């Protein structure tokens, strides 16, 4: 995973070009329904990988991720709505459009990071289940506050959020997967860095970590800030993709979904989170077909989904990958085969 200098630039350019190319090709080539699921996969990867930094890597039990997502989503949608393509205004074209969009997403991310800082503060004092319920409370407080801000539609929801396509020739796919890849890349690099080692140490044993000279407070708050930042950007992308936001999209059920992805993937495993995000997005959709075999048009999709979740947790209590990464699994298998030959 070491990328330096010219090689890194080249790789970045290649990724950008590939994303831009797919961005042109996919909407035409794919069924709109499949394409929409693809976009949700990208957003959920961002969500799971960012929560993995807080819950998986640092071991802080946060149940407020939907709140961060809501803050980011509403702030960035408000920015593009006001300074971009308001009810009457023409969306800025060319590079200006891209800059407004990028600025709006960043503003959303930064606002969410600010919220993450505020929520991270009580984590200095609280642990485990108490932290979980406080973050859940914060998430709900954020939602109730948004519900009462008339400027963004309150309970009716925020309609008229400009679409990504209005700002730049690059559309949803490009932006969503650019952010997803960036989040995964930052996560992997962060876990491998000294900061990441400190986060893992806090997860394993906070007292021992402190005794080794790690500033545990700083580490925990930083995890919240970074995780919330990316969740905020994911919220921004969701709002611009759907061109609509509603506080009911960000209840604690949404936070539960994100936590399920992290635990299902394996706590602290970045690739596990990505894998679980894909599984968790595709599985409910794949179960749609079952409805055809049921009498009276009963839809047992979510019941089957919840049963599968229970069975998965019973059979693989440490998640799909445990604390390993997917390349560790392949490496171990190759080594085993090498010895056998």
């Amino acid at each position: 995973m070491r990328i330096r200098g010219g090689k890194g630039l080249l790789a970045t350019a290649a990724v950008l070009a590939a994303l831009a190319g797919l961005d042109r090709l996919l909407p035409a080539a794919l069924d709109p329904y499949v394409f929409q699921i693809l976009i949700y996969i990208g957003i959920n990867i961002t969500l799971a990988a960012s929560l993995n930094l807080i819950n998986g890597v640092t071991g802080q039990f946060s149940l407020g991720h939907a709140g961060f997502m809501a803050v980011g989503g509403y702030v960035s949608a408000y920015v593009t709505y006001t300074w971009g393509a308001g009810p009457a205004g023409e969306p800025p074209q060319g590079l200006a459009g891209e800059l407004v969009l990028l600025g709006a997403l960043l503003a959303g991310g930064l606002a969410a990071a600010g919220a993450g800082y505020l929520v991270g503060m009580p984590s200095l004092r609280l642990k485990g289940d108490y932290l979980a319920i406080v973050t859940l409370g914060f998430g709900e407080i954020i939602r109730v506050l948004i519900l009462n801000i008339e400027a963004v539609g309150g309970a009716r929801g925020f309609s008229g959020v400009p679409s990504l396509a209005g700002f730049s020739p690059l559309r949803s796919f490009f932006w969503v997967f650019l952010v997803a890849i960036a989040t995964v890349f930052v996560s992997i690099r962060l876990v491998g860095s000294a900061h990441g080692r400190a986060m893992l140490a806090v997860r394993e044993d906070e007292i021992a970590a402190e005794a080794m000279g790690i500033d545990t407070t700083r580490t925990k708050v930083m995890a919240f800030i970074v995780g919330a930042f990316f969740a905020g950007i994911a919220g921004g992308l969701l709002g611009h993709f759907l061109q609509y936001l509603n506080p009911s999209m960000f209840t604690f059920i949404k936070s539960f979904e994100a936590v399920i992805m992290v635990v299902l993937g394996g706590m602290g495993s970045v690739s596990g989170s990505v894998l679980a995000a894909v599984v968790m997005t595709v599985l409910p959709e794949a179960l749609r077909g079952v409805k055809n075999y049921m009498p009276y048009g009963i839809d047992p999709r979510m019941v089957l989904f919840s049963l599968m979740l229970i069975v998965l947790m019973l059979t693989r209590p440490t998640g799909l990958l445990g604390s390993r990464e997917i390349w560790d699994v392949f490496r171990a298998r190759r080594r085993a085969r090498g010895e056998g030959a």
Partner: protein
Amino acid sequence: MNTFFQHVLNGITTGSIYALIALGYTMVYGVLKLINFAHGDVFMLGAFMGYYVAHALGLARSPSVPGAVLVMVSSMAICGLFGFLNERAAYRPLRRAPRITSLITAIGVSFFLEYGGQMAFGPDPKFFPQVFPKHNIQVGGVSTTNYQLIVVVVAVALMGGLQWIVYRTRFGKAMRAVSHNFEMASLMGIPTDRVISTTFVLGSALAAAAGCLYGLAYPKIDPLMGIFPGLKAFVAAVLGGIGNVPGAVLGGMVIGVVEEFTVAADPWVWQSIGLHIGRYKDAIVFGILVAILVLRPSGLLGRYEPEKV
């Protein structure tokens, strides 16, 4: 002044329902250190079981007091059985796994009950029948119904019964021992598995009772009705000090009364500072929770446990 007592009574009615649910949360947390997120949905299940038993007995047409008692007892029995099976099938196999695994399983069970409820009972709201005759009562200028008083009385009686079980019986002693130190209790010959099963049965039966009482006080019931009362009850359990039986009761009452007064103060606050405070009801409940936990992390009645290295 009468309106004041009126609101206090309304708050206590909601609060006693929260308290009954909170007791299940707090007991399970005490013995297993597990937040049983499915508990709010057991409350929903209790309300629906009450609804179906009442209809099967024909109480909607001919209300009677013995019938009402039977409705509540059978709903409690069915949910107690569900609690037993739930623990056996979904939580016991994970006893040795990381705690977060059981938590995700609990969320899975919660989803299963919500969506399964929508499938089995239908997603539309149903109306809980009036299982015994309803009267209006005037107590010193406060107008109320016999339903509201019965909700409070039954809830308090059940809480008293639980208090007796936990602090005065052999089983209660075993339960407190398990909650104090699981491994040590099992070394002392306490059948921990049986204690945990019984705890689940008791908690689920109390949630079912809360569901039936809720159906009496607020007759509209639907498969998703357990989500928010469940969450509020959990907040109540944490507020009072999780794992602490009187704490859960106190927490439930505090939350019920605070909610009631937030809504009651709405017109007055709107006139004086132009803010619809009633709409911030949920935010205020959680705000209190955050404040309590930051200032007194072990809850109102919880014991402070210094961390051992």
